[in-house]
C-alpha cells in the first residue's frame, strides 16, 4: 500500500481544542459528534435489550419487577427508534459523505446542521432525564397509545417531549439535505449522475420533512391531555383513542422507511465497489427509492387491522401495503444482478451488505405476512411482529450501519482495521443475531403476545434459545467495536482509496482536508459507477 506523501492538513488537525469541536460548523466533525453520541445511546439501548432477554429466560420473575420491565422495553424502543436508528445513517454517514459524494465542501446550511445536533442532544437528555426525575421512565411502549399514556403516573410527558424535540432535529437535517442536493451538486452532476446513496438520502429527507410534523402535533396533544387532565383522545368528552393511532402511524410508518432507505443507499454503494462493476439498473434503484418514500405514506393503517378500524379501510390499507413491497423487491433483484459478472472482492463491508440483504429478506417477507389481513389478525401484537421489526431494523439497517462504518472507516480515520478480526466478529454477530430473533417469529405464530413480562410455560424453550442468541450477539458486537476502536487509534495508515471506489469521496485524501477537496473532483464518465477498467457491455 502506498501512502500519499504530499503534506496536507486533515480536518482533525485543521483546528484544535474542545471548542473547535463543540462549535464546529464542519459537516465532518458534526458527523463524528453524532457518531459518538449515537453509538453511546445504542449501547444503552442494547443493554436494556439484554436485560429484557435475561428476564424472559424463563417464566415468572427472574431479575426485575413487571413495572420495571415495562419501563425498560419502552425506553429500549424510544432509544432505539428515536436516538439510534432514525438518525443513525443520515446524521452520521449522510452528514459526513453527502457533501463529499456531491463534490462540495459542506451542507447548504452548516449552522442549521449544528443546531440539529444540539436539538438531538437536548432530546436525548429529555429522554434519559426520566431515569432520574419524575416518577420514572414512561411505561407505555414506544407507541404512547392513548388513553394509557394519559392515565399512567410515569413520566410520559418528558419522553413525549423528547420525541418532539428529536423530531425537530430530524426535520432540520432532512431540510438541509434536500437543499444541499438541489443546490450544491458539483458542476456537471445532474440528478441522474448522483451516487445512489444521495438518492436514498433525498427520498429519506422528504419523509423527514413531511411526516415528522404530524407526530409532533400528535405528541403535543398527548402532553396537553396530561397537563390539563382532559384532551382530544379522551372518550369521556367524545374523543376517539383510535384517532390517536391513525395520527401516530401517519408518521411512524413512513418513519420505518426513514430507517430503511439510507441503509439501502449504503448497500447500493458497497455492492458495485466490491463487484468492481457498474450498478445494474441505476434508474430503477434510484426511482424506487422515491416510490417507496411516496407509497410509504399510504399504508399506515396496516398497524391497526385489529384496532377497530373499519373493514373497507383495512382492505385498502392492506392492498397498498403490498404495493410498497414491490419497489423494495426491485431493489433486491437489481443488487443481485449487480453481482453477476462482477469481479468480486469479498471484504468486510461486502459481507455486511450481503447480510443486510439476507436479514432484510426475512424481515421484508415476514412484513408481507403482516400485511395480509387474515394472517395479521392472528400475529398482530405478538412476537412475530417483534421478530419482523428486529429483522428489518437491526438485521437490515443495523447491519448496513455497521457495513457503512467498515466501508468508510479508512476515509473517516485514515486508518485500516484488522480485517481478520472484523470478519470473525461479523460471523459471530450474524449467527448470534439469527439465533436471537428467529425463535421470536415462531413464538409469534404460536401466539405469544409482545410486551409480556411473563409468559405461558409452553413458550419457554424458544425464549431460552433467543436469550442465548443475545449473548452471542453481544460477543460479536463487542469484538467488532474493540477492533474498530483499536484501529482508529493505532491501525495502519490507509490509502486514500483502499477499495478502488469510484464515487467522489474516494478522490480526496483520507481523512479529507477541512475544505474536502483541494482540486476539482472529476465525475466518472458515463455514470456514477462506470468502472473504467471493467469490460464494457451494453444491453
Amino acid at each position, binding site marked *: 500500500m502506498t501512502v500519499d506523501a504530499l503534506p496536507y492538513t486533515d480536518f482533525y488537525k485543521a483546528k484544535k481544542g474542545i471548542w473547535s469541536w463543540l462549535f464546529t460548523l464542519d459537516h465532518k466533525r458534526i458527523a463524528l459528534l453524532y457518531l459518538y453520541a449515537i453509538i453511546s445511546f445504542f449501547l444503552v439501548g442494547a443493554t436494556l435489550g439484554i436485560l429484557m432477554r435475561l428476564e424472559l429466560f424463563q417464566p415468572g420473575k427472574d431479575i426485575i419487577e413487571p413495572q420495571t420491565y415495562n419501563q425498560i422495553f419502552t425506553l429500549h424502543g424510544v432509544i432505539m427508534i428515536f436516538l439510534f436508528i432514525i438518525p443513525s445513517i443520515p446524521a452520521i454517514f449522510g452528514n459526513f459523505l453527502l457533501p463529499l459524494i456531491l463534490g462540495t465542501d459542506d451542507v447548504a446550511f452548516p449552522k442549521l446542521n449544528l443546531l440539529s445536533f444540539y436539538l438531538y442532544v437536548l432530546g436525548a437528555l429529555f429522554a434519559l432525564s426520566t431515569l432520574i426525575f419524575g416518577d420514572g421512565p414512561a411505561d407505555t411502549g414506544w407507541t404512547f397509545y392513548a388513553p394509557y399514556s394519559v392515565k399512567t*403516573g410515569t413520566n410520559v410527558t418528558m419522553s413525549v417531549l423528547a420525541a418532539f424535540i428529536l423530531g425537530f432535529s430530524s426535520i432540520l437535517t432532512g431540510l438541509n439535505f434536500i437543499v444541499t442536493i438541489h443546490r450544491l451538486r458539483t458542476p456537471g452532476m445532474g440528478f441522474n449522475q448522483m451516487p445512489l446513496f444521495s438518492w436514498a438520502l433525498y427520498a429519506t429527507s422528504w419523509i423527514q420533512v413531511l411526516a415528522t410534523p404530524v407526530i409532533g402535533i400528535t405528541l403535543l396533544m398527548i402532553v396537553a391531555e396530561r397537563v390539563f387532565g382532559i384532551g382530544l383522545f379522551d372518550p369521556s368528552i367524545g374523543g376517539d383513542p383510535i384517532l390517536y393511532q391513525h395520527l401516530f402511524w401517519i408518521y411512524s410508518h413512513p418513519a420505518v422507511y426513514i430507517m430503511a432507505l439510507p441503509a439501502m443507499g449504503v448497500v447500493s454503494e458497497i455492492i458495485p465497489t466490491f463487484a468492481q462493476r457498474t450498478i445494474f439498473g441505476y434508474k430503477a434503484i434510484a426511482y424506487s427509492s422515491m416510490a417507496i418514500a411516496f407509497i410509504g405514506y399510504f399504508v399506515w393503517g396496516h398497524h391497526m387491522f385489529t384496532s377497530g378500524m373499519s373493514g373497507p379501510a383495512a382492505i385498502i390499507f392492506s392492498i397498498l401495503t403490498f404495493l410498497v413491497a*414491490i419497489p423494495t423487491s426491485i431493489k433486491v433483484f437489481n443488487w443481485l444482478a449487480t453481482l453477476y459478472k462482477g*469481479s468480486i472482492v469479498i471484504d468486510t463491508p461486502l459481507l455486511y451488505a450481503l447480510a443486510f440483504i439476507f436479514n432484510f429478506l426475512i424481515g421484508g417477507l415476514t412484513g408481507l405476512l403482516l400485511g395480509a*389481513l387474515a394472517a395479521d389478525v392472528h400475529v398482530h401484537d405478538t412476537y412475530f411482529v417483534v421478530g419482523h421489526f428486529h429483522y428489518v431494523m437491526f438485521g437490515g439497517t443495523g447491519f448496513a450501519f455497521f457495513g457503512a462504518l467498515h466501508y468508510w472507516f479508512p476515509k473517516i480515520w485514515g486508518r485500516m482495521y484488522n480485517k481478520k478480526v472484523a470478519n470473525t466478529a461479523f460471523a459471530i454477530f450474524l449467527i448470534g443475531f439469527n439465533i436471537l430473533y428467529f425463535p421470536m417469529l415462531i413464538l409469534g405464530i404460536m401466539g405469544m403476545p409482545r410486551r409480556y413480562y411473563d409468559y405461558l410455560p409452553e413458550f419457554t424453550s424458544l425464549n431460552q434459545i433467543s436469550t442465548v442468541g443475545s449473548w452471542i450477539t453481544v460477543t460479536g458486537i463487542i469484538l467488532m467495536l474493540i477492533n474498530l476502536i483499536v484501529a482508529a487509534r493505532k491501525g495502519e495508515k490507509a490509502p486514500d482509496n483502499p477499495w478502488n471506489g469510484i464515487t467522489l469521496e474516494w478522490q480526496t485524501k483520507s481523512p479529507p482536508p477541512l475544505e474536502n477537496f483541494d482540486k476539482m473532483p472529476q465525475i466518472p464518465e458515463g455514470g456514477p459507477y462506470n468502472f473504467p477498467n471493467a469490460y464494457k457491455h451494453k444491453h
Partner: protein
Amino acid sequence: MNASNFVEGVDFSLYLILSIAVFFLVGITAVMIYFLIRYRKKRNPVATNIEGSYTLEIIWTVIPTILVLIMFWYGWTGYKPMLTAPNDAMEIEAVGQMWKWTFNYPNGKSSDTLVIPIDKAVKLNLVSKDVLHSLYIPAFRIKQDVVPGKDFSMWFIGQKLGRYDILCAEYCGQLHSYMLSSVHVIEENKYDEWLNKKEDTSNEHPGLTLMKKNACLSCHTQDGTRLVGPSFKDIIGKTETIIVDGKEQTIIVDRDYIFNKISNPTSSTVKGYQSGLMPQLNLSEQEVNDMIDYISTIK
C-alpha cells in the same frame, strides 16, 4: 376439526405466504452465494459493466406484483367473514379492565372465564372500563381490540371441545401479561346447565363478592404481599404516608379514609405507589360500606 371457524382461512393465508417467503429467501440466498463463488476476483478478474435490462426490470416487477395480489386476496378472504357476525349469534358482553376479563351473559350470570356451547356462533360485545385491551384467542386465530367509549364486537364459532387460552394482546399497563382467562367450549346441554346454575355466593361475604366483581383483587392482595397497590391485610389502623395535592401527610388508615379512597381514587396517593391507576367506579354508599366491612376482616 379446527378449533374455530376462522382457523382455516387464517392458516391458509399464513402458510401460503410463508411458503412463498421461504422460496424467495432460499432462492435469492442461493443465487447470491453462487455469484460470490463464480464471479470472485480470482475466477473472474475482469468485470463486465452491464447497465441494466428493461426486460428483466419488467419481469421482476410483474411477478412480485402478481404474487402480492394473490397474497392480498387470500388475506382478504380469510378476513372478510370476521367482519360480520350472523344474526342468530348469541351475544355475550366481554368486559376488559385493568388485568381482568369478565363475561356477562344475557341472563345476568357473570363469570371470569368464557364458557360457550360448541358449534354455535358467539358474538362478544366488547367493553373497556379503562384503557385499550385486546381479546386474543390464539387457538381460534382471532383478536380484537377493546376500546373505551366504543362498542366493538367480535364473533366466532367454537368447533372443538376443550379449554383454550384467552390473552390480552394490547399493552395495558403493569400486569398486562397476567390478564389471562380461558374459553371453555362445552356441549350444548352442559352449557345450559352451567348457564342456569346460580353461583352460590350466600355464604360469601357480600363485600368479597363485590370486590371480585370489580377486580379489586387483581391489584390488591389479602396476604400482605405487594402487587400493584398496597395489600389489604391489616390495613385498618396502619400508619402510612399519603400524598394529597403534591404534599405528603401521615395518616392512620380508618373507614373514612378508605371510603374516600374508593369513591374518589384520585383524591390521594399512597406514597411509593403509582398514582392514577386505581379505577373510578360507580358504587352505591351501601356497596362501598360492604367492601370496607370485608376489608376490615382481612387479618
